[in-house]
């Protein structure tokens, strides 16, 4: 038996089933769609470098970049690699690793159930040898070097390093050329066995599919004897509110400066709808303060200090969160001066209630629109799941946000003491 979750505004439904081993499976039918997507994700990302394996007493600490390394290696099998199997079916497989998630997925238009069977199969079947681990280091090194040359990536990660003192969010997701050298077969197995247990994972499917067949296929992939795993204790150091440094600069081959301004939020250990609400509240604040319909953005744009490369928003997970404003500019100093002035001059007019309601409307429209694209639905689902929220919670949470929620948070987040500036400067 499966459960049904409905959303009347979206006109969408989702079927849900939890297996005895703890794996949660969700299916969102999309009638008339040519494509299907399945995403199989573990709550395990680059932040999880220190943890206590269930059943052990002592903490384990592993090199940075190991979750991402695992993502690469799981595609390899004793009898070849998984790309071959998908190629035969015309399915497009891929994977990503971020701070708190590793996700494997495919899209296809034919042979969906076979492709699904392969997905659940290969993620559950690690095959690491000394040789194949060594070989992967060359490929991952090229991936790291590619990011080393990407100023948008660098400006953002430098900002995180200025914002966070101890939290592992300050580390590069793929690790460094040095840290991946420390990774070996045994470490990979240890992390795999800890974090790839079904009770730490979720499977989500969207497309014109038969839910019962999906539940059946997935259930058959697991041995009945697999029990739920007890809790993995993840060790994140207590992150203080204050920042590491106010400014971080690097020179690269760029045409003009790139900037990322971060405002560190009070780290909160919350999840679910509360976390979702916090994220949306801060997103709305960022939008009202410096979004495209704000006075500040208009002023900065007209003075040539920002252009349409500019964006702003909030990123938040359990234990950390920050507002980011980033883009290219020809004059970092003046831009900062203006933003700091605007912060000092914040009053009730900066955040008037009419615009608050207008931006809420925009948020709801954007969310509804995202259900046009099945890959998007899948990414969004996983993103919400890792936060312990449900995909359909969004509209309800937005509608519940009151003007007073915004007012309370403005002065907390826009504080010069928790503001950092990361700049990539041109070489010459």
């Amino acid at each position, binding site marked *: 038996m499966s459960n049904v979750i409905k959303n009347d505004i979206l006109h969408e439904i989702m079927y849900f089933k939890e297996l005895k081993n703890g794996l949660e499976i969700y299916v969102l039918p999309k009638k008339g769609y040519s494509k299907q997507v399945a995403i199989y994700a573990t709550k395990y990302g680059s932040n999880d470098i220190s943890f206590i394996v269930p059943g052990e007493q002592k903490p384990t600490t592993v090199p940075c970049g190991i979750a991402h390394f695992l993502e690469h290696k799981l595609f390899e099998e004793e009898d070849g690699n998984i790309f071959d199997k998908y190629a035969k079916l015309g399915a497009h497989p891929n994977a990503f690793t971020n701070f708190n998630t590793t996700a494997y997925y495919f899209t296809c238009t034919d042979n969906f159930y076979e492709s699904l069977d392969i997905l659940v199969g290969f993620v559950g079947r690690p095959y690491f040898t000394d040789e194949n681990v060594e070989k992967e280091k060359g490929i991952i090194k090229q991936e790291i070097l590619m990011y080393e040359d990407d100023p948008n990536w660098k400006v953002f990660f430098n900002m995180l390093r200025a914002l966070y003192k101890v939290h592992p969010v300050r580390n590069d997701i793929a690790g460094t050329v040095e840290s991946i050298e420390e990774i070996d077969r045994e470490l990979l197995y240890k992390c795999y066995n800890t974090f790839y247990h079904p009770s730490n994972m979720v499977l989500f499917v969207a497309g014109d599919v038969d839910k019962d067949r999906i539940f059946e296929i997935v259930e058959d992939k697991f041995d009945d004897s697999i029990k739920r795993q007890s809790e993995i204790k993840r060790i994140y150091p207590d992150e203080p509110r204050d920042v590491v440094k106010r400014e971080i600069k690097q020179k690269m081959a760029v045409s003009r400066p790139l900037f990322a301004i971060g405002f560190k939020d009070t780290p909160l250990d919350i999840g679910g709808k509360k976390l979702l609400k916090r994220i949306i509240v801060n997103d709305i604040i960022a939008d009202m303060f410096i979004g*495209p319909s704000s006075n500040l953005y208009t002023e900065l744009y007209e003075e040539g200090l920002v252009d349409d490369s500019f964006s702003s928003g909030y990123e938040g997970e359990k234990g950390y969160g920050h507002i980011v404003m980033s883009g290219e500019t020809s004059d970092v100093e003046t831009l900062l001066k203006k933003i700091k002035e605007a912060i000092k001059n914040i009053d009730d007019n900066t955040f008037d209630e009419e615009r608050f309601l207008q931006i809420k409307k925009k948020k709801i429209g954007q969310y509804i629109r995202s259900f046009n694209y099945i890959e998007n639905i899948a990414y969004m689902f996983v993103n919400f799941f890792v936060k312990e929220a449900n995909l359909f919670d969004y509209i309800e949470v937005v509608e519940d946000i009151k003007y007073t929620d915004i007012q309370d948070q403005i002065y907390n987040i826009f504080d010069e003491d928790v503001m950092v500036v990361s700049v990539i400067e041109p070489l010459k």
Partner: protein
Amino acid sequence: MREFEKMNIGQGIDLYVLPTDKFKTVSISYCFHRDLDEYYTYNALVPAVIRRGCEGYETIQDIESYLERQYGAIFDVGIQKKGERHILRFSMDIVNDNYIPNGDTAVVAQAFYFLNRIITKPVVEGRGFKAEYVEQEKENLRNRIEGLINDKMAYSIERCIQLMCEGEKYSRYVYGSVDDIDAIDNVNLYDVYRDILATSPLDIFVIGDVDSLKLKTILENSLDVKRGAIKTIPETVIKKVGIKPREYVERMNITQGKLNMGFRTNILYTEDDYYPLMVCSSVLGGGPHSKLFINVREKSSLAYYAFSQLEKFKGLMLVGAGIDFDNYDQTIKIVNKQLEDIREGIISDKELDASKKSIITALKGIKDQPGQIIDYYLGNVISGSRKTIDEVIESVNVVEREDVARVCNKIKLDTIYFLRN
């Protein structure tokens, strides 16, 4: 999938409507076709100036506030390069009325009036656009063109194409040239814009839960663009003979080298050989099933990415890889070896089958995305092809190994470009 209903509404304007309740939005695109001629920098500057405002919404702030009130409608004006053609595209994407929580209606109809106002009533002063907007956007455009170097992969691809197509219109960068910017002012830009409106072939695409006849009426009532004699856009030139491969090395302070190899396919999009060509490029570098992925990445650990892609309107094939500086010769050798193999028909059943399936999956996937559907049919208008997506799928399906080998023999290496430290 149903096909677009095409309606000629006179004055060189075609309306394409695809009524479907599959999507939660209505997507609208007005596409003005221009030759990629010496006014290309003007064309590229137009969208930025138009986005600044119109009568009734005189600033970006006014426009953005309007869009927010329309449940975050997406509005954009942009320029695209399709072969030796510039497409000035006004687009809007609106949440369909029946998904709007509080029963607000007519959001869709309003969008057409809004777009018309944007197109026909820009902010003007004297005989030109508002000078202040033009001067600011000239600066933004300059930054945008110069900012191409910030993305090393995109930069290396663009440079390879520019060097390869030197002397051809196609070498013109989609966002124009910094050398042209100074000569542009608010008056001459406005003249170019009025000419665009009056003389460009115009295609209007609409996808969503709409009634095509009602929509035609809304469009005819809302649109009041002044039209003149409609220009014919020259065909894109596909150079076919006498290529001597050239090598270019450019230096920059970077950690990973970017190798790009540019080929002439000598095959038009409308020729039957285009389908084996699609398969050929896929066998070479169209994904994890491809020869480049296996031989450059998996077997030699030389790169994280290695790909081949087609520029369908100009008859180009581009190969790219991010590699260590020292691996330049080795990587080129591997790429050439793969091409030789394909020419000799050394393509396994597995490779052929996987490539065809991969292309077909991508083609079918177009049907799930309004933007991609519009892009596909816009491509048909440009190339003169009348094939539906399903017909292309059929043509790809029947491609044989010999066809792939045969078309691969037509592909000639033109330019090797390497960005290194």
